[in-house]
């Protein structure tokens, strides 16, 4: 008991604040600046993905709405597969190609056409732009599964849009 008290009393005297021998703040501030820059880059990147997704939703929504207005239900001839650039063929990007191909194996590139209807054509253009941006993004982040999902959805919407177009078949 006495031993413990004397020992703890002796050791507790070492529990003091000790200033570093040199000012560490400049090095810390430099690291904080680097961290902040990386954070800003990451935020910009996230905003970019959100913009692509938003474009996709707007384009798809506008196209389908336009189609509903026209009630132009025509079954098209086989339509083109979404052409994912082969140079972007990374492990996950390859899945996007395979996935799109699997859903419409009989389609040809000629069918990746622009609808005659101006409203549908505008939506198709938006979807094509979104698809191109997603393919670029996949080249930078070939491991990003969510980009593959977005690309597949974009291409699928593009196909549906063309199928609903009066000039589809």
């Amino acid at each position, binding site marked *: 008991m006495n*031993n413990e008290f*004397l020992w703890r009393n*002796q050791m*507790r005297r070492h529990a*003091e604040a000790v200033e570093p021998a040199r000012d*560490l*703040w400049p090095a810390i501030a430099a690291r904080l600046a680097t961290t902040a820059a990386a954070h800003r880059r990451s935020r910009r990147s996230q905003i970019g993905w959100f913009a692509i997704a938003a474009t996709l939703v707007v384009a798809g929504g506008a196209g389908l709405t336009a189609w509903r207005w026209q009630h132009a239900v025509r079954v098209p001839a086989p339509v083109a597969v979404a052409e994912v650039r082969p140079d972007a063929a990374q492990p996950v990007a390859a899945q996007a190609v395979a996935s799109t191909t699997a859903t419409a194996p009989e389609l040809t590139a000629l069918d990746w056409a622009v609808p005659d209807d101006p409203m549908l054509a505008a939506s198709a253009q938006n979807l094509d732009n979104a698809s191109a941006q997603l393919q670029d993004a996949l080249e930078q982040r070939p491991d990003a599964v969510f980009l593959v999902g977005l690309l597949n959805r974009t291409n699928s919407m593009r196909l549906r849009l063309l199928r609903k177009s009066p000039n589809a078949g």
Partner: protein
Amino acid sequence: MHGAALSMNVRSYEVPLGADDNALVRRSVAGDTAAFEQLYRGHVGRVHGAILRLVGMDRARAEELTQDAFVRAWQKLSGFRHESAFSTWLYRLGVNTALMDLRGKHEEVAAPDDELEFAAGGEVPFCAGERGDIERAVSKLPPRARAVLVLHDVEGWKHEEIANELGMAVGSSKAQLHRARGLLRRALTDSRDVSAKIRNGEVSHEQ
């Protein structure tokens, strides 16, 4: 070696200004690095002191880990809930940074828990020592034993807290403490014997 250098920089704990800290924390969360610098200036001594003791008075390593601790604090600041004092939160984060470093080294072969618990029996007699002798002896302890001794005897942590932080059983923490105290006592006794011999002219300083 480290003892003399340290004594020049040692100062008493400052009373933390909790209310001011909270305002500075809020400004820091908003990205104000000048506010965070004030927090750094107010608390670096306590954080660095604890880290320094945990790394066995290795000044260069302690400075690196102190920097790491403040960078981590900046990154995690938005998660600070103001439920405890900022000084306590920061101090725990600093200690955790040093313990992570300790866990990552794997330089010590951990003794089995049951052996350590068996060794924990009996009391280690009190042994007084000079500050410099104690610091030197603590710095030579095996890392895990040193961490337990510093956290329990110097920083005043409970065995449950230490066991939780170091990922060991409470019994192992007690056993490591007993082991560390025994090694420390032996080192202090040896040091005292050498000093006595030097005084009596039996050995030279170089020995």
